[in-house]
């Protein structure tokens, strides 16, 4: 599992290293954790807004040391099982890369928006445990972060390719790396032993029709990604609204016009987070 991922074009490596996290959230979580009267829900809500911290927490609780790998996919359950001490440890040892915020401007906002949209869609489709959809939504572009933080020169190359040929970020990644962030997500999720539903949401959010085990998860994140881009909340690295796979609607047994009601709910929820600034 300690294997690094080798890119296909230039033989560069994506290494299993520390990932960046966002400074302000880190600070907020530390404050909340330090206060004895804080509840698990408050801390979970904050941690859920940081994709890197969320991923680390889930990775930790699903590690074989705790004895139930692959079972836990909700942040608040992870907090109940890990306890504040372990969380504090994770936060303290999470290295903060300024590069990240500068590097991928707007990606964090895009991830939050996708997380919100994922749980909204899951709820309106009557799916169980909507919070788990939100986790997958939050983490769906993590592969982009990992690739650009670890291979800084790659980022400039992708960006100029996106501009030059008006490609999607994914297409540019594929041209330069030989594969996209969806494959990097699969590698990360496997390495961290994340539960299979979260993994499929992460690595099939561009191709829900090929998801084997949890097509609903992949379809929800797929549509959520689309909505987040449609609303132009944050940025996924290019200006395109991605092509919607019609299979996503089929999988969720909804019609495209059902998105209207979802959008109404989303309007309100986006307002709730729009004043959250994490810089």
């Amino acid at each position, binding site marked *: 599992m300690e294997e690094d991922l080798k890119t296909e074009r230039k033989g560069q490596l994506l290494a299993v290293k520390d990932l960046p996290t966002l400074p302000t959230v880190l600070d907020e979580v530390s404050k909340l954790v330090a206060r004895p009267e804080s509840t698990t829900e408050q801390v979970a809500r904050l941690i859920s807004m940081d994709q890197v911290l969320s991923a680390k927490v889930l990775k930790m609780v699903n590690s074989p040391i*705790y*004895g*139930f790998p692959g079972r836990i996919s909700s942040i608040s*359950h992870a907090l*109940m*099982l890990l306890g504040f*001490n372990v969380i504090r440890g994770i936060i303290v040892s999470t290295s903060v890369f300024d590069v990240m915020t500068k590097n991928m401007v707007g990606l964090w906002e895009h991830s939050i928006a996708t997380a919100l949209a994922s749980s909204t869609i899951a709820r309106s489709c009557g799916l169980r445990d909507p919070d788990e959809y939100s986790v997958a939504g939050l983490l769906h572009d993590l592969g982009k972060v990992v690739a650009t933080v670890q291979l800084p020169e790659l980022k400039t190359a992708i960006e100029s390719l996106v501009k030059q040929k008006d490609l999607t970020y994914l297409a540019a990644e594929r041209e330069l790396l030989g594969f996209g962030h969806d494959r990097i997500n699969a590698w990360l999720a496997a390495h961290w032993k994340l539960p299979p539903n979260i993994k499929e949401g992460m690595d099939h959010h561009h191709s829900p029709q090929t998801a084997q085990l949890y097509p609903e998860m992949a379809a929800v994140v797929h549509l959520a990604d689309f909505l987040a881009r449609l609303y132009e909340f944050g940025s996924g690295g290019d200006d395109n609204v991605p092509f919607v796979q019609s299979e996503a609607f089929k999988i969720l047994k909804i019609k495209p016009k059902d998105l209207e009601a979802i959008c109404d709910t989303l309007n309100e929820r986006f307002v709730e987070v729009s004043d959250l600034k994490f810089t």
Partner: protein
Amino acid sequence: MEQALAGCVFSRPQRIMLLTPDAGLRDMLTTLWEPGQVEWTHSERGRGAIEHLFTEPPDLLIVDNDLPDIKGLEVASIVKSENVYRQLPIILAASEEAVAASSWCGVEVDELLITPSSPTRVKALIYLTLARASRSFDANPLTRLPGNSSIIQRIQEMMDRKEDFALAYADLDFFKSFNDKYGFSRGDEVLMMTARVIVTTIRSFTGVRSFVGHVGGDDYVFILPPDTVEAACQRVVESFDSIVPHFYDEEDRARGSIVSTDREGAIKTFPLMAISIAVVFNEGGRLTHYGQASQIAMSLKKKAKENKKSCYVLDSRGRNAVREEPE
């Protein structure tokens, strides 16, 4: 040395057996602790001592590598090859040269005492060896939580000091049917999860004296001050109930029940697992013996078990109250 090691006192007198022909070593060791702290049994020869070792095993064996009648390592290997004596910690005393020349790695000795050595070093070495042995002696092999004898010892200590405390016994309902259907390794996952829920909940009450132990199987014990125990029970029940469905397969979770065989072998439907907690209070030195507490707890447990959902029962100085999580 006396000041630095002053905190290294034992909670009960330790019995140490020493096998050495070296009078100097014997004199140094036997004066390390005040009389009453350590009870020494000394023998210059190995063979005769083995029988004594087997009939009245000490807390620690210190054996010299150079005994006149048998090799020290041989004594160690005789003791360690018997399952009932394996937990007895052994310190092998040998000179630097003897250690370099012998193949002690193959024998399960716990520590090496390189002679000659200073009293400070030796005292620390013995203390650490005994402390480590008592920690690992009855730890639950799955959860690594303290086991039965540590639990009883802790409770008895608190009773003897007339400390106020609440003692909670927790166990799982329908764990057996889960185990039967999903197998032992999935059952172990649930036991690990339960231990974790209890540990993190109890640890979240900072600045109080607390304790968590694992009696075995699906039986757990925790101790908290009387005024915090109800909040802890609430949180344990809440966390357990929200997490445990995720340890079932999709369809069982959706249905909220499993089909498995009962104790008589008949096929039956069982609800999802629940956690029951019985709490005994000891205030104002009401209880004086561990047995009293466990007896009260067992009768409360019956009350808690009448409820198929997760719940806790408080024994409030005779007034019993059953609480269950609201739907």
